């Protein structure tokens, strides 16, 4: 459904994308994860046709983005991170306007608007101005406005940021429904649990490059790790960390803690404590984390997802 090949984009001397490639199959839920400034937004902006790449190609639903942007646009729906609605119009009028941009016949559009409002639990408030809505309700309308033309591909850029649990659950239900119905979804998020819950496939992007991609299981095996021993210290300094990191493969420092990636916790825990004591480090806490997307991400990028 989507094919991205050797995508490059420079902003003056800064290389935002250094030649990324990936494919997304029809009906796939694809998570694009990366720390801030990694190139996620640039990639999404190019795929959603509002930014031209310097090099590389993108095809969506069989249409080449460069040669046929209008056809690509007809096949995509975009849910931007910011809530982009007209606050002085009602939810219904907002949806009527955004839907009309895609040449959906008016009678069909009206039926779809009613269905979508029901789906998002906002039918009873459809005539209220959007400015009277809560943040979560606005987010729901923001998503609804991208679905009215029934796109084949849906791009969602952190759609659940800063919303209440009720709205989040509603959005999750809609996402699951859309996924079941076969819609291809490209999803960026800072919430690992969302990516783990929904994504069939995950691409991890850092410094303008895809550093790993695959299913969660594939990423786990790619990172060659099972668990993480997180040791916090009272006196961690750069020189002491340099001392530890020279003796242990697969460590990352995050503030006053060192993450030791290991496949044998029982074997390595005592060795780690011994080495830390020998190095003069004073341990304040030890935590053992199981392997999840968060630890895989940390292991691959050296950064937490919210960095």
């Amino acid at each position, binding site marked *: 459904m989507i094919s991205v090949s050797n995508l490059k984009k420079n902003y003056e001397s800064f290389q935002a994308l250094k030649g990324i490639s990936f494919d997304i199959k029809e009906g796939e839920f694809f998570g694009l994860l990366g720390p801030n400034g990694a190139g996620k937004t640039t990639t999404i902006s190019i795929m959603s046709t*509002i930014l031209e790449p310097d090099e590389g190609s993108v095809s969506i639903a069989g249409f080449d983005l460069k040669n046929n942007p209008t056809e690509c646009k007809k096949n995509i729906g975009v849910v931007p991170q910011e809530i*982009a609605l007209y606050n002085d119009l009602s939810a219904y009028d907002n949806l009527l306007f*955004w839907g009309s941009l*895609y040449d959906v016949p008016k009678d069909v559009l009206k039926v779809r608007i009613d269905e979508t409002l029901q789906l998002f639990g906002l039918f009873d408030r459809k005539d209220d101005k959007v400015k009277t809505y809560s943040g979560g309700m606005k987010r729901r309308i923001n998503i609804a406005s991208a679905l009215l033309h029934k796109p084949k591909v849906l791009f969602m850029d952190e759609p659940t940021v800063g919303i209440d649990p009720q709205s989040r659950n509603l959005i999750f239900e809609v996402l699951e429904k859309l996924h079941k119905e076969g819609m291809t979804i490209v999803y960026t998020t800072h919430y690992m649990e969302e990516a783990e819950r929904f994504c069939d496939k995950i691409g991890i992007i850092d410094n303008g490059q895809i550093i790993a991609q695959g299913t969660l299981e594939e990423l786990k095996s790619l990172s060659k790790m099972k668990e993480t021993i997180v040791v916090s210290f009272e006196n961690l300094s750069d020189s002491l960390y340099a001392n530890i990191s020279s003796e242990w493969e697969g460590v990352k420092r995050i503030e006053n803690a060192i993450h030791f990636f290991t496949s044998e916790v029982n074997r390595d825990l005592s060795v780690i404590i011994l080495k830390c004591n020998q190095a003069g480090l004073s341990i304040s806490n030890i935590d053992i984390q199981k392997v999840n997307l968060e630890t895989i991400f940390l292991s691959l990028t050296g950064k937490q997802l919210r960095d």
Partner: protein
Amino acid sequence: MIKLALKDIQLFFADKRALMLTVAVPMALITLFAFAFGGAGQTKGESRPKTLVIADEDKTEVSKNAIAELDSLKEFKVSQTSLDSAENLVKKGDVAAILVFHKGFRDSINAGNKPPIEFKYDAAKEAETGILQGALLGNLMGIIGVKSSAKSALEKFDSENPTMDSATRERIHTQISNNFSSSESKKQSDSFIKSTPLIAEEENSPGLIHAVAGTAIMMLLFSVVGMGASLLDEKQEGTLKKLLYSPIRPNSILFGKMIYANFVSAFQLVIMFIYAKLVFGLDIFSHLAAILLMILAIGYACSSFGVFLASFSKSRQQVQGMSTLIILVMSCIGGSMIPTFIMPVFMQKISVFSVNYWGIQGFYDIFWRMLPINDPTFLSRILVLFLLGTVLNFIALQMFKKNILKIA
């Protein structure tokens, strides 16, 4: 309390835009108004030459000499043209008044009769006409009135006293000439120029036309800037980005704003003129087609101006800061605040760069000069407004692509 005030003063001086609006903008406006009212750019005690268009129907040595003498005066900048052409200049609002030397001027002077001179004027330009007429009366009496009256008196004296010795005759001639040069004599001769309004007095007073047209256009400019700035709001609120995700062409977004601004502009002007009809009795129904055409032209030019300003700016705040100064300047030089005809000549020349000027003159054409809708002068103003709007739109389109579409 003092600490709070000091903090605000510090913030005020740190905000260069606020500082500029507080100091530089009023200074610029004071300068502009000083020029507009003619108080600046002139040496003390010296007035600027008044444009005097003369139609010489007599075409004799006597009329030519009189015109040459007027031209030699510092007060006037004389130009000559045919009567028809001169009258058209008044009718089209290019000059406030003309002076006509009718046929028989020489003969009347020689016969010592009242010379056939006519001052034809546009009553809408009351102030300018009054100043010109005042200056003319004094000087014309000096040039023509005194000469003809003194000449006939001297001739009469000579014919009645043919035997008088030359020394006595010379002394009496001097005395008679001096008497005719006296101010009292001038006053008595004030009525020797016939004054005729060239444009018939209508129900619509020029003051009312000016107030309605000038204010409506100025306020419209302020409104359209807000409409143009809505483009920047869309950018700020993310809806512009969302529009760009859709299959509509980016240019369509700008054209959509233009249509919206045009519609609201026309609506606002229509309401203003209906109000002027209901409250002040401005006769709008006799010229409905011309008014609607002028409203469309002004709406187009003004809305293009609003979109043009927005396309240069990065935020609504920037548009508002910039527009206040530009609109006040345009309204001042274009005649929304004070009529252009009382401004110095160089200010009148600058006024053509303002939308206000063309709009106000267009409404004068309709309500005062009573020009028909197909009159070339009226149509030329419509054309200028549409051209101005098109040029502004073209530049706005380029700037829109360059500035506003940079969103990713």
